[in-house]
């Protein structure tokens, strides 16, 4: 998407022209986690900006910025790992557990980690 198309799209959005702040709920959660962890002092905002900009610079970055929160999440994971809170292996395993729990949960009911059939 060209810059002009992005601008036109942004202007076509309802209300104040700002549209929804987050395209999907997980983006809002990833955003808020970074803000909270900074508030808690896990990292400085300079560290955050440097890590995020490193992720955004990846080759093949999309012109329409639709990968922005993917980069945000990667930055969050890499800072969490560098601060020895959790590494990507821990996150992979728990994400898989959440996915299994989601599959095992009947539609309309809240998904709980306890519903993971492989849970030990």
């Amino acid at each position, binding site marked *: 998407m060209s810059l002009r198309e992005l601008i036109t799209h942004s202007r076509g959005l309802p209300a104040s022209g700002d549209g929804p702040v987050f395209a999907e709920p997980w983006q809002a959660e990833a955003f*808020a986690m970074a803000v909270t962890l900074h508030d808690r002092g896990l990292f*400085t905002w300079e560290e955050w900006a440097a890590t995020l900009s490193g992720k955004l610079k990846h080759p093949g970055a999309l012109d329409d910025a639709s990968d922005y929160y993917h980069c945000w999440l990667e930055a969050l994971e890499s800072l969490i790992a560098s601060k020895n809170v959790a590494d990507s292996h821990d996150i992979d395993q728990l994400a898989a557990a*959440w996915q299994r729990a989601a599959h095992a949960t009947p539609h309309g009911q809240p998904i709980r980690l306890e519903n993971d059939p492989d849970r030990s």
Partner: protein
Amino acid sequence: MAARVRALETILTEKGLIDPQAIDAIVDTYETKVGPRNGAKVVAKAWSDPEYAEWLKRDATAAIESLSYTGRQGEHMQAVFNTPDTHNLVVCTLCSCYPWSVLGLPPVWYKSPPYRSKAVIDPRGVLVEFDLTLPETTRIRVWDSTAELRYLVVPMRPEGSEGLSEEQLAELVTRDSMIGTGLARAPGAG
């Protein structure tokens, strides 16, 4: 992605680093409470009150905080005033640093690689994409935001806005005019 975020949330909650309720509160704040209306009030006040404008020019962080719009990342704010000779344009070439407390979260185009790369190299060309053509004699000054310093453009007060209240003036201040990719609306224009 959703499962990954959920996994992160679980780990961070178990370690006592985040509180799910606090996460919800932050999301709510940025989805509904913080937005360009804050910045518009700052600009309208600067247009109406020369003393406030002077303060905003000298110490934007304090002048903005006085209206209870406080940055979360301890960032400093600088207000850059448009004049007939100089137009100001804000970008973050590195990532997407943006004055959240006064403008909310940035629009998609602000975060896009084309805007971030072109704004510095060819600001006049970028403004044309926004249908904003400035006189050749107007100098365009580009401000590159950082984690420590964020910018708010104070657009020129539109002609014909004499006698309007601060509230009415704030209606003329668009988000884009505070980034520098637009001008304030003329009174009576849609």
